[in-house]
């Protein structure tokens, strides 16, 4: 008699539904982990509360009725209070959502509450996805979908089996009838093949949604995302227009990805690229900052657009595209390698441009990943700024000090710096480039590079104190010291922060900048050429990286093939194929599919033509008896092989191994293996009889196969341990 799989009863289904609902809530509230909204306490409370009631579903029955009566007015009051105090709509909405989830999680639910649970969870996840554009969203929405579908399935099964549902907040009957061993029963009731099919169907769901995503027609409305208005966010890393000593070094402690760059021509990336973000011209109170005057004079009025035409002239020939994916929380200043021809955002942005500084600044710190494409970017070690020469002349005439020339030091400190300059120049007049070289060497003689640096105690400016000491220093101190020395020599100078270097991801073929690549360096103005020259005084760098030759080599560059790179490649895939997918990508995909289809067709036709020619040539060869016999034998072999193939396929299709007495039955095969092993070592006993029954006997007479094999394994181990040829 065929043993029937046991079924889950209504109580078990209820409990399963309860657990899945709880899991759904836990999944939803985990968005707080990357949403960066202040809801940690609520998340902790919800996680704890829901996990508790998942384990002990009888707990909600102890909640007094008054709690249910006051719950919704209370939640609304908390929301209004939150809105009033924080004045931020979106974070308040998120907290409201979590509160509702918490309430739904710790009380018994009706069907409409189950639906509410899904809607609340979905809202939270989609919101987090929209705001962060994080790869975690992809993981979470997939997990949420799987969980929500399982939950809905459980709800439907319960609904089908239930005759009368509990009303309101009444304790449902299943809570009183709980039995231990739910998972054992679920496992026993689950058919492995159906579970596998379920997994396959979910895979199909993902594939279909991917296809739908690509096929949904897009219309470019050029609207910016409305949700961003309701949330503010501060840059996490410290790339702002005000940097204290140690800020950049702090960023370097973080090894996470800051910017990913897709380049159409990888050979355009220099061996040691510098990605400029912020220019800091003013130094006072131990802080480098973007001076108010420079901000006023250099930055144009704020614009709202999706495209920005740059200073570089269009070139003939193939255009290079650099697509930047800057993670949220890095900065509102966009990393750029130089002047560009065109900058295109994914959607409309509010931004300001300082063309002379080579800087583009967004209005707010972006709350999500910011993608922009730069066309025709000039990757150079200098920045043309002829206008500054005029400004310099004008200021000299007026006797007015420019911030790029200004030294706000005490007389004592000024004398120390001038003494240092004399040591560097030996009284001669040096060009800005030469000065930078010598000053860097002077600094390198005194200091070594180190992330942990100490500024000696004492009076006066800390930067001057460090400069004349022999303490190790980080990039900001070196850059600051060079700027100070250059200004003392009369050379306009400024500090620039951004990223230096990066790594090439060998899996996704893109350039990756990590926060640990954060760097500070200087730019010295050469009045003769009208260029700002990049000078990097930090030991280990080429001070004047003036060469414009571009390394053509991905192979000479550091190629990252670590597990981190593998994970980052997923993120890049997410950005390239999902987040940045637009009408153009859709057209390109359609073209690619069309081309691939046409090429496949062409290749197939060519292959068939080739085979046709070969067969014709073979047939045209002279025939003799031997060739005839060989051909006939060949045809017979092909026919026999096909026949065997068909028989095998039929057997597989009909589940031949499942037929009674079928030798290919996995249980019989496993029993055969154990019998052979036992025969080799002459192991006898009852276990052998059981195994023989499994191997040769009627399926109806089988004992539980798992137990027999477990016993066989135990016997085998005992036999090996005692080295005894026979046990019983």
């Amino acid at each position, binding site marked *: 008699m065929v043993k029937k799989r046991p079924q889950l009863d209504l109580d078990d289904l209820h409990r399963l539904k309860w657990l899945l609902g709880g899991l759904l809530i836990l999944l939803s509230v985990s968005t707080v982990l990357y949403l960066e909204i202040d809801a940690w306490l609520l998340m902790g409370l919800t996680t704890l509360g829901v996990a508790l009631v998942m384990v002990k579903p009888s707990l909600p029955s102890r909640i007094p009725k008054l709690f249910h009566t006051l719950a919704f007015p209370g939640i609304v009051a908390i929301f209004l209070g939150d809105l009033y105090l924080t004045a931020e709509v979106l974070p308040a909405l998120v907290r409201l959502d979590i509160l509702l989830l918490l309430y739904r999680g710790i009380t018994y639910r009706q069907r409409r509450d189950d639906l509410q649970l899904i809607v609340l969870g979905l809202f939270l996840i989609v919101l987090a996805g929209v705001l962060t554009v994080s790869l975690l*969203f992809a993981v979470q929405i997939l997990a949420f979908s799987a969980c929500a579908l399982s939950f809905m399935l459980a709800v439907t099964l319960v609904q089908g089996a239930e005759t009368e549902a509990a009303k309101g907040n009444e304790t449902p009957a299943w809570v009183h009838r709980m039995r231990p061993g739910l998972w054992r029963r679920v496992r026993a009731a689950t058919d492995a093949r159906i579970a596998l099919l379920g997994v396959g169907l979910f895979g199909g769901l993902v594939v279909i949604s991917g296809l739908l995503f690509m096929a949904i027609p897009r219309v470019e409305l050029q609207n910016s995302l409305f949700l961003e208005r309701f949330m503010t966010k501060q840059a996490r890393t410290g790339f702002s227009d005000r940097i204290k000593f140690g800020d950049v070094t702090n960023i370097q402690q973080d090894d996470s990805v800051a910017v990913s760059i897709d380049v159409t021509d990888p050979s355009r990336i220099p061996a040691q690229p510098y990605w400029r973000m912020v220019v800091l011209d003013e130094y006072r109170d131990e802080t480098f900052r973007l001076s108010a005057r420079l901000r006023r004079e250099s930055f144009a009025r704020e614009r709202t657009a999706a495209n920005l035409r740059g200073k570089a002239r269009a070139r003939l020939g193939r255009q290079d595209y650099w697509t930047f994916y800057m993670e949220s929380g890095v900065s509102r200043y966009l990393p750029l390698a130089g002047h560009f021809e065109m900058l295109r955002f994914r959607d409309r942005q509010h931004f300001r441009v300082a063309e002379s500084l080579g800087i583009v600044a967004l209005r707010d710190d972006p709350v999500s990943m910011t993608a922009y494409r730069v066309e025709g970017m000039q990757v150079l070690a200098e920045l043309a700024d002829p206008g500054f020469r005029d400004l310099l002349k004008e200021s000299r005439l007026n006797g007015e000090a420019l911030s790029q020339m200004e030294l706000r030091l005490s007389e004592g400190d000024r004398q120390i710096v001038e003494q240092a300059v004399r040591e560097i120049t030996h009284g001669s007049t040096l060009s800005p480039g030469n000065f930078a070289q010598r000053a860097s060497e002077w600094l390198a003689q005194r200091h070594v590079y180190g992330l942990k640096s100490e500024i000696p105690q004492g009076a006066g400016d800390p930067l001057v104190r460090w400069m004349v000491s022999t303490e190790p220093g980080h990039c900001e101190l070196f850059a600051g010291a060079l700027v100070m020395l250059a200004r003392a020599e009369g050379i306009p100078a400024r500090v620039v922060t951004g990223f230096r270097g990066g790594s090439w991801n060998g899996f996704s073929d893109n350039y990756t900048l990590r926060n640990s690549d954060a760097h500070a360096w200087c730019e010295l103005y050469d009045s003769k050429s009208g260029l700002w020259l990049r000078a990097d005084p930090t030991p280990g760098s080429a001070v004047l990286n003036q060469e414009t030759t571009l390394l053509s080599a991905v192979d000479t560059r550091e190629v990252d093939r670590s597990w981190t790179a593998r994970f980052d490649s997923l993120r890049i895939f997410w950005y390239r194929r999902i987040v940045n997918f637009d009408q153009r990508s859709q057209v390109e995909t359609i073209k690619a599919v069309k081309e691939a289809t046409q090429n496949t067709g062409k290749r197939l036709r060519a292959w068939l033509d080739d085979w046709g020619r070969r067969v014709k040539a073979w047939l045209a060869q002279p025939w003799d008896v031997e060739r005839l016999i060989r051909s006939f034998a060949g045809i017979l072999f092909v026919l026999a092989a096909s026949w065997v193939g068909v028989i095998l396929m039929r057997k597989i299709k009909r589940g031949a191994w499942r037929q009674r007495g079928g030798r290919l039955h996995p249980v019989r095969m496993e029993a055969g293996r154990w019998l052979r092993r036992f025969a080799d070592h002459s192991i006898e006993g009852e276990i052998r009889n059981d195994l023989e029954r499994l191997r040769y006997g009627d399926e109806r007479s089988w004992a539980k196969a798992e137990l027999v094999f477990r016993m066989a394994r135990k016997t085998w181990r005992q036999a090996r341990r005692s080295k005894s040829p026979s046990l019983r």
Partner: protein
Amino acid sequence: MTTATKTLAAGWDGPGVGRKKQRVAFRWRNVVWALIYPRREQHMVPTVSGVLLIGLSLGIGMAAYNSSNNILFITLALMLACLILSGVLAWFNFSKVRWQIGRPSLARVGQSTSVTLELVNGKTFLPTYGLDCVMRARPGVKDEVMRAETTLTGKGMDVKAIWKEKPEEEVAHLRLSSRLDPQDSSILDWEWVPKKRGLWKLGLRHVASFFPFGFFNKRLRAVLEREVIVWPEAREYQWAATTGAKWLSGASNISRTGQGSDLLALRRYEPGDSHRLIHWKASARTRQLLVRQFSAEATESFSLWVQSKEAGWTNAEQYEVLVSFAATLAEDLFRAGRLASVRIDDGVAKPIRHWRDLESWLDTLSVLEMEKSNADTIPRDALRTNRNLITFVPEGQAGVVAMIDGEKAATA
């Protein structure tokens, strides 16, 4: 005979029953039209959660188009894929499932009758879940031909009239609450209590399922129907104090020798007579052996004559009382072994010897309709010629009296 034909012949229906497919030329027009107006056999009605999902999809779709945000687009795609998956799983669930209505047991007005629906899952390894079989019982006309009905051209009052007729239809939901394993069957029971006698059609209106996610209620129209005759209600009645008791409460004796208990006569002893029959007292008095002779004991049989066309039956309720009274009386008499024959109106009297004779007559009574007629009451000569004839006459507005040979015997 193919398997499919055999199955149909055996009363099976459902997606699991193979039908000869009609070859229809593929036309896009048909496909599009089928999407807009699905076939009558398959209907999908969105549930609350389905409406919610569609609403959410629309909302997210609008937001996605408005903002060109790919996160919203991928959420939209995922939701649409969920709808597709729901459809595929619902199709899997119904696939190769067949059903059959079992022959109902005795059906009688006011008494519970068990109607069974057997479901078989013919799939190889996929189970079927959560079927909701909507059973229907409706008064039917024998061998009626179903005609397609449309309300498109109907007048409002006609449609209302049709709706008014609907309450006669009884509907019951039979739920498959457990899993129906592959190659397994399950029997669902419907305890049907008929409210009216006559010919009824028991059928499966449709089989519905919310499986898998409850977004849609997918319905498959069923064409399975089985005719059943509902016998009249078993009615309580009271015997008349005198006549009824006299004729119906016990047996009567007749004047011939037999094995009864009453002494009929004495006769001379003949060799072979049992010694136990010798009347010793009389033998001593007459000085010769006399034996006792007992009277034969016999029960008398009755004939039932239902006059449905009698002018007196003007009230439908009273008529129903008549039919149920006649049926109950006939059954009671038959059980007591005292029903000889039955007759309706001008028909021929049918002898009732076996249960099947009685059942046949009850079937006839079940579909007996009241006919307005000005015919006379039972002819007097019939009463004279037929002994033990039971007839029925109206009494008051709702009562019915059973008369034996013209005398009042029982009232219902």
